[in-house]
Each structure stands twice: as C-alpha cells, then as structure tokens.
C-alpha cells in the first residue's frame, strides 16, 4: 500500500521493477553519441511506411516488441499498456497498439508522457491492480513538424533556442516481480505557466515546472542533491537546463554536476546542428529505456530521479494569443 509523503510525493510499498526496455530511433539520433545503446536505427524517416504518422506508430510498436523480448515477458503477460505521443488524438500510440489485443490507456503529457506513464503504472502495480505493464512513448520529427510547425520543405530559419524533435520511441516493461531497477517513489507534477509565448523556446516554458517538481520531491523526501547519482530531465535542452540551474539555486538547491538532460545526451550539440538539443516524448523514452537502464545494469548508477518535462502548448491556443504551460513528472529509480 503506497504512502503519501509531504505535499505531492508518493512512496511505493511494492516498488515496480523495470524488467527491460528498448529504444528505436531515427538516423540523426543514430548518428549521435548514444548510437550503440539503441536497439535499432531506422533507415529513413518513413521507416518503410507510407506516412510519417505510420512510421511513428511503427517504431513505437517495434520498441514495445523489443522491450517484451528483452524482459522475457510475452504479450499475454501484460495487463495494461500506458502510452502516448505528441500528435493530435495520440494517433501514433493508438494505431501502434490497435492489434496487440491488450488493454490500452492513452496518455497526453506532451514530452512528459514517459514519466507520466511510468508513474501511473508504478502506482497501479503497487496497488495490486496490475501485475505487468508496458510504459511507452514516441515522437517523430516529421510528424511533429507538420502538426506543430511547418511543412518539411518550407524554408524557415531555426532560432538558437529551438530544439530538434527526436524521431524515437522507447518502451519499458514494469512488473510486480523480477529483476531490475525499481521505481520506489513518484512525484506527479503541477502545470506551471510563466507566460512564455515563443514556441521556439520550449526549454524556458518547461524549466519552471521541472524546478517545481524536483524541489517538491527533494523537500517531500528530505533528500539532498548529493544523494542522487543523477537528476535526469527529459528535454530541457541547453538553454532550459541553464534556466533550471538558476531556478533551483533560487530555491537553495545546487544541482552541481548531477543534472543531465536527455535532449543534450541524445545529440552532439556541437556537430549535429540541433541548436539547444533534442525534444519530444521519444527523446526521454528512448534514452531512458536504453542508455540509462544500461547504466543501472553496469552498476554505474544506483539512484536516479527521472523527470520528463512537457510543454502543453496547442497551436490553436497560441494563435489565440495564449502562453505555454509546462509540466514535469518525476519517478525515483533505484537499483
């Protein structure tokens, strides 16, 4: 039975065990520093499909299949799939899982979807209603661009604070038993809107939410930054990460060298022309499901606070003059 701790955090009595994970990415990500950790790199942006949306469903499906394989579970073992993506109607996820014959609940947390799904699954496992769950999220540069920004061939100049939506999908299998790193606590995030109107500067929109959730977690659990091997955000990017540091300092927390950001890990910012780094649900999902799980396997890390960050913007509301709200959900992963 879980226990609430402090204002927002939930400590799990029966930690959910991460039995395995897999990540499938696109070519640009496959040329990045984490290339060797990914399970597969697709040949081109269409992944053998006719449309970008179908390609995104394809890589999400492939990540799910691979994650099952690596965790030694079969599809019939799974009680629930919790997944989502950036697209309208979460269409990549719903179409990816339409033929798997397993209960599915779609989620929208923008780029925070991966930890949202892991947090929910962990609570369900702890409560006993789910034995084994799939947590997965995806994003695709092309499908995101055509929905949120411009057609691919349109000649627009990217601004220095912009980020490159990652083409990638990540899936983890969570279970009530087995071997692997465990999710021992979760801190769901609140929506924070600091008035950012520039959809090319999402790092700034999300940093306050990340700061709030991390601060909440630290204060609820009474832990200090030193007790973590890594505080890993999803996709704040270079600019958003600097903002996070400053905001945390204002809350009297020094992140020191513990903070890492999936958006800055997945690409080489110097050589890959991605401005401030990667973004998208697939970014944090793919990095965590492969690179981070590998670090646990090798004993390099023992305690990580994983906070995927999302910008809950809507193109329609933005055109109506609205600002960009941010959200960040944290899961505590321990060896």
């Amino acid at each position, binding site marked *: 039975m879980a226990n609430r701790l402090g204002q927002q955090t939930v400590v799990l009595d029966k930690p959910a065990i991460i039995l395995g994970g897999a990540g499938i990415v*696109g*070519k*640009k990500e496959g040329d990045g520093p984490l290339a060797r950790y990914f399970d597969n790199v697709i040949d*081109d*942006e269409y992944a053998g499909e006719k449309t970008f949306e179908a390609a995104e469903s394809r890589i999400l499906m492939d990540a799910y299949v691979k994650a099952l394989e690596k965790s030694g579970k079969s599809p019939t073992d799974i009680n629930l799939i919790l997944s989502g993506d950036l697209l309208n109607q979460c269409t990549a996820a719903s179409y990816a899982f339409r033929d798997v014959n397993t209960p599915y609940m779609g989620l929208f947390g923008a780029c925070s979807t991966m930890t949202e799904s892991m947090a929910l699954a962990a609570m369900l496992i702890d409560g006993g209603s789910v034995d084994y769950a799939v947590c997965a999220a995806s994003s695709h*540069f*092309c499908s995101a661009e055509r929905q949120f920004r411009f*057609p*691919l*061939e349109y000649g*627009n*100049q990217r601004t220095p604070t912009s980020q490159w939506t990652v*083409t990638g999908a990540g899936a983890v299998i969570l279970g009530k038993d087995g071997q692997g790193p465990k999710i021992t606590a979760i801190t769901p995030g609140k929506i924070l809107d600091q008035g950012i*109107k*520039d959809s090319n500067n999402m790092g700034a929109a999300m940093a306050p939410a990340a700061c709030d959730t991390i601060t909440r977690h630290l204060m609820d659990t009474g832990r200090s930054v030193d007790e973590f091997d890594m505080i890993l955000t999803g996709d704040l990017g270079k600019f958003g990460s600097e903002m996070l540091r400053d905001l945390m300092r204002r809350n009297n927390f020094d992140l020191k060298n513990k903070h890492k950001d999936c958006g800055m890990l997945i690409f080489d910012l110097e050589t890959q022309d991605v401005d401030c780094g990667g973004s998208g649900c697939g970014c944090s999902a793919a990095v965590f499901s492969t690179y981070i799980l590998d670090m646990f396997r090798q004993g390099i890390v023992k305690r990580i606070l994983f906070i995927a960050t999302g910008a809950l913007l809507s193109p329609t509301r933005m055109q109506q003059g609205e600002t960009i709200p941010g959200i960040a959900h944290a899961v505590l992963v321990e060896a």
Partner: protein
Amino acid sequence: MVVDVMKAFLLGGCICIIGQLLVDLTKLTPARIMVIFVVTGVVLGLFGLYQPLVEWGGAGATVPLTGFGNLLAKGVIKEIEEQGFLGVFTGGVKSAAAGITAAVTFGYIMAIISKPRIKS
C-alpha cells in the same frame, strides 16, 4: 549588362537585409513579415515611390515580395485608367495572374512528383 546584374544583386540583398532584421530583432513570424513586405510594396507602388527602385535595380526590386506588391498597385492603377471603377477589383489580380497561376501549377506538379524529406 554585368552592371545591371550587380545592381540587382545589391538592391535585392539590401531589401532582404531589411527582412532579416525584422526576423532577428522582432517577434514577427515569417508569415507576418511576408505580409508586411507585400503591403509595403502596394503602398509604395500607389505613390510611385517604388518605380525608381525598379528602374535602378531591375530584378533586385521586382523579385522580392515588395515587387509583387508594386505589381499589384501598378495593375490596379492601369485598370482604373482603362476601365474606370471596375479596375479597383480587376487590376490587382490581373497583373498578378502569371505569378499566381504559375505558383498553383508548379505547386501541384511538384506535389505529384516529389516527396518531402527530413533536412539533412
């Protein structure tokens, strides 16, 4: 002849610099900047202020979107001279006919034969 090409290069480059300043220094989106350029061209064309630029810089004045605006204004004025009040409604589109039709035609053809690809 070479001088004409150089003048076009110079004038076109300068007009584009103005556009780039708007991009970098204001929060204006590219679409809004294109609208500003075309409307500016119409206004300058109406008062005959754009014609000197066309005479000096040739394509350097007609190729940028301001030139398109100027074309619309000149077309409207010409049609009003020839057709009276009706020209207000016919002049603009008449002068832009070649451009609009070409854009639709080539756009459609390219859509049929080409596939969008991720930026390399």
